[in-house]
């Protein structure tokens, strides 16, 4: 427990130790001191009230609205039974946008995780350039999404766009990027990786720098090389972080809207190839005014995301044991 001894106060030394919520040597909670009272309710009430009003209540009204023909333009609202659900569940465009969301997740998670790890390993080894590397890899993460998409939209321009100019100079094919339904999602993934890999990079970097030196010392006695050290010592130590990064990344990727909307275009990209499910909900509810229909659609997404989240949550908690 060398680290905790050096630290000024025990809790501060463990800002990130969920595995051991009670530092050794400190007494646990003392139930005898706790008398039931209503005081606690006042503490949780402000949050719970906001939570109920802004998250729970809308989720409920969304369910009710899904059985009506409510329109953004107002006017008479009447019950339509299961019509919206029937339309939504048989709408190929809805399934297409769900598939695009899933596809985006499948294509974006591996590079985001692997590159995050690779950049972190690089930074961890090239220590003397540490601040510069950290700056370069993480800086894009603090850009507002519209800045990122403006820059990449400009770079993706066919003809004079800088990416295709260099591809042309290297004698490589010059894709239409955002202009073709075959490449638009890839283009969005590339831009997303550039933009957000810094987050995973930072998580990995923190994990790497938390690996105790003894582990390395033991390995170096065996005279193993750098690659072997990474493979046999570092990577196994990062397993927990990797699960965490993958789960967080999947949650983020499944909720994609911003960059797809701004890069692919408000119309959802060529032939709707970049219209994600949230985009379709937005379009149905706000562009086309069909609040009832959008509510049913959002519930489908809601349930799917919910199921995936429960699965991931179990993965995470099992991993913590």
């Amino acid at each position: 427990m060398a680290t905790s001894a050096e630290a000024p106060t025990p809790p501060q030394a463990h800002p990130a130790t969920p595995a051991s919520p009670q530092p050794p040597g400190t007494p646990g909670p003392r139930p005898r001191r706790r008398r039931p009272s209503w005081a606690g309710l006042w503490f949780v009430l402000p949050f719970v009230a906001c939570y109920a009003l802004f998250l729970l209540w809308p989720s409920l009204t969304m369910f009710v609205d899904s059985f009506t023909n409510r329109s953004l333009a107002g006017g008479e609202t009447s019950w339509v039974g299961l019509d919206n659900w029937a339309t939504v569940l048989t709408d190929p465009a809805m399934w297409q946008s769900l598939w695009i969301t899933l596809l985006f997740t499948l294509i974006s998670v591996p590079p985001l995780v692997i590159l995050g790890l690779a950049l972190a390993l690089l930074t961890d080894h090239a220590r003397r350039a540490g601040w510069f590397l950290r700056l370069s890899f993480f800086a894009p993460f603090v850009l507002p999404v519209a800045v990122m998409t403006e820059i990449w939209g400009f770079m993706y321009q066919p003809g004079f766009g800088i990416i295709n100019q260099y591809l042309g100079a290297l004698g490589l094919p010059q894709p239409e990027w955002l202009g073709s339904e075959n490449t638009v999602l890839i283009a969005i993934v590339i831009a997303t990786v550039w933009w957000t890999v810094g987050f995973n990079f930072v998580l990995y970097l923190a994990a790497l720098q938390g690996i105790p030196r003894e582990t390395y010392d033991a390995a170096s006695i065996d005279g193993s090389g750098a690659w072997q050290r990474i493979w046999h010592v570092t990577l196994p130590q990062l397993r927990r972080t990797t699960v965490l990064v993958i789960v967080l990344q999947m949650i983020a990727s499944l909720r994609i809207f911003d960059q797809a909307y701004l890069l692919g275009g408000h119309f959802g990209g060529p032939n709707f190839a970049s219209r994600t499910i949230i985009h379709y909900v937005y379009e149905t509810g706000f562009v086309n005014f069909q609040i009832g229909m959008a509510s049913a659609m959002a519930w489908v997404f809601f349930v799917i995301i919910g199921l995936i989240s429960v699965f991931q949550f179990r993965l995470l908690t099992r991993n913590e044991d």
Partner: protein
Amino acid sequence: MPEHRTPHQHSTTRGRSPHRIPGRPFGRVTTGSLVLYLVAISAAVFWLAPLLWALSTATKPEGETNAIPARWIPTDPTLEHVAQVLGRGEVLRWILNSVVVSSLVTLLTLVLCCLAAYGFSRCVFPGRAWVFALVIGGILIPPQAVIVPQFILMTQLNMVDTYWGIALPQVVTPIFVFILKRFFDGIPRDYEDAARMDGAGHLRVLFSVILPLSRPILAAVGIFVFIGAWNNFLWPFVVVQDPDLMTIPVGLGTVASDYGLQYAPSMAAAVIGALPLLIVFLLFQRQIVTGIAGAGIKG
């Protein structure tokens, strides 16, 4: 499992020791490390290239922006586009709006989540387990899925096109209640026992015992929430139509300026829009990276 700890950043401040590359004298240049540094620096420069390209384009005369072949160094650098964007004032207004909204969201989140976390961690009240389960269940609700009913609610509360309308729904983040509660649970009770013997009530225990001990996690959560609110796009995009109230990502993403068809001023606007958080990041690099890692790992 060996003495493995979840990563934490505090060791890095004093962990600047040569033990990283075991068995190798600090400072000796080998081919391996030369290659390593070469690869690392190239990767970093490559990563910065889009930003540099935006900066370069912003300072070019418009005619040069779509030149073939591309020129990285403008032949005749100019600040006219920057002046043009600043002269219109809307980007500055959006930055101001972002400051207001992000501060509001951060403060409210910290206050509400700390109170709730304290309540769940330190108080016993009827139905606590149920309420806590309800809050934790909220982690599973993707806020993106409820934009439609949230907007309808905002029209009913008359909050469309107001700062409150942007901020309040962003404050409801159950995950931070969970994180903070877990942290508070780990704080030994000895500290507050002394205070309680002095007759301190819950509020005093929270503000004079728990919160001072929780500074690192509060900073982490605060930084995380602030950056998140600053860069949040979807909700402000939905609830704000009035350009006077837009935050920076929404303003840049939806308002087509009179220079909409020109790349140089667009890039100038993008660079100016990115600047505030970039500067903050440059100044507080270590704290922000630590905060993100802290909140991210806990989350």
